[in-house]
């Protein structure tokens, strides 16, 4: 059987998602054996920028004209485009100030040369192109990446949990930081798959994996406000990894 061809690339991001692949040390030889890596600038010198591929796994948010051009190019030459990580899927940390003036923000960072910086609000891929599959996470879980690669070999996509972090957290018999300790935990709103890693270590869910399907945002807001958290603080925390929430959404 012909090996599926693959491109791995990044837009505006920290490269942490691509590093997730390199962190699969035990599985890398197998991955290299199963896939033909045509283009992976972070891991392999050279590479063909123009060849068509079966799958393009791409991280980062779309934040510059160059990003958009790269994304359109990757879309047009790949059979499947995978949004890899929370930036690609929701906007991520780079988008947390999308509600503020881009011009002002650019000035704060770049001062005198701000005018020369070509940038717009960081946005997820689906604002611009059709996305075939997405892996959430900042960074994504190794297991989910490997599950995707395994499924691709069979011509399908894996099924990821359609429930929130709380489910995995309860199953681990963790202490509920939201109910027991009245902390600002976003667990009920956030897509599971991380095994509730942070709450298991006593740290609230910061929401790095983005919204779960049908998140009851309004109810979580009410609950947190009953616990004494100001609405602005809750919104600011929710925006950290996903800039656009419908705060009235119940279903």
């Amino acid at each position, binding site marked *: 059987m012909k090996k599926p061809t693959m491109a791995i690339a990044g837009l505006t991001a920290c490269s942490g998602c691509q590093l997730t692949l390199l962190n699969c040390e035990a*599985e890398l030889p*197998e*991955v290299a054996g*199963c896939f033909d890596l045509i283009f992976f600038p972070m891991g392999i010198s050279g590479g063909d920028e123009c060849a068509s591929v079966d799958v393009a796994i791409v991280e980062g948010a779309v934040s510059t004209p160059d990003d958009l051009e790269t994304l359109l190019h990757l879309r047009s030459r790949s059979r499947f485009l995978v949004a890899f990580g929370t930036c690609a899927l929701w906007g991520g940390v780079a988008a947390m100030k999308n509600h503020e003036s881009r011009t002002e923000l650019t000035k704060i960072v770049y001062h005198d040369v701000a005018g020369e910086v070509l940038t717009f609000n960081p946005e997820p891929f689906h604002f611009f192109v059709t996305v075939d599959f997405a892996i959430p996470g900042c960074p994504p879980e190794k297991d989910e990446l*490997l*599950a995707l*690669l*395994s*499924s691709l*070999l*069979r011509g399908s996509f*894996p*099924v990821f949990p*359609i*429930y*929130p972090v*709380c*489910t995995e957290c*309860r*199953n681990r*018999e*963790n*202490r*509920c930081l*939201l*109910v*027991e300790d009245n902390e600002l935990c976003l*667990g*009920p*709103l956030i897509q599971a798959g991380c095994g509730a890693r942070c709450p298991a270590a*006593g740290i609230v869910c910061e929401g790095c994996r983005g919204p*779960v*399907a*049908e998140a*009851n945002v*309004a*109810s*979580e807001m*009410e*609950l947190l406000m009953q616990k004494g958290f100001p609405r602005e603080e809750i919104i600011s925390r929710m925006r950290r990894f996903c800039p656009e929430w419908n705060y009235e959404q*119940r*279903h």
Partner: protein
Amino acid sequence: MQKNFLSNESFPLFLQGLAASGDLHGPVLTDDGVMAFRPICSPADIQLDCIRTLIPPKKYFFPPKEAILTYSPVKGYQLTKAAGKKVILFGLHPCDLAGIAYLDRVFLESQPDPLFVKRRKAVTLIGLSCEPDEYCFCGTMGTAEPQNFDIFMHRTEAGFYLSAGSSRGKKIIRRLSVLLEAREPPSPVPCECKIEETILQAATRGETFSESRLWEDFAGRCLSCGACSLCCPTCYCFDVQERGRLDGETAERLREWDNCLFKSHGEVAGGHNFRKTREERFRYRFQHKYLGFGPMRGIVSCVGCGRCRDVCPVKIDLMELFREKANIL
């Protein structure tokens, strides 16, 4: 008269004796303060006053997530083999024993589940009497009277009155009888709760509370976090997934706990969902819990442990439906 009384002084020795029959597990407080069934390292760790653990004992027979089948081109389909390590599970309240009895009917009767069978056989159930709190209503569901135990220990100030519920239990008591003495057990104190009759009557007449406004209220508040079913001793819904391995040839089939409030619970291939709204899912949950489905129709599977009411972050309580109808709010 049979030797049936274990003094508090002899209790640690009794536990040591139990541990000779298998790994001793019971309710302990975890490092971050969660009540959980765990291995007992020292008798002092056992929480005799435990009201309820977060996750019920079902995890011993039916873990949250496990591979149930593997496939390889060479060996074909192979069922996973459970280790079946002997466990002495101490501190099961009557509600938890009733929960296990219900799961026994689900997993051991018409279509025995091989993994459940093996694990269930390997676990010895040691019951313990308890003091209910404001979340319990165990008297109500007929679970105050212990059932389905190997040994039941009725706790009093001076010690425990033991009774055997199986030949396995009798053997253990006989083996440890040197620690026991003969005493007349105290007469049981009847446990009363007003809601019992209401629930059982409603279940008998197939009540669905279809006109209640509470469904909308529940659906509006529910976070779909899954806690109510994960923590329920009788919720057994599971999801099955196929996970191919990276070699492109071998694969495993996973089973994991599901919850009827999840979007995917009623979803089928092609994206159709039999229960699109959270309100429909709540009605379904109620009907499964109190009216039963299929061969379990007519069996109330709520054992009154109070876990779902206790753990729900937004304090949803299905009991409100009964109370509303019976005007006993």
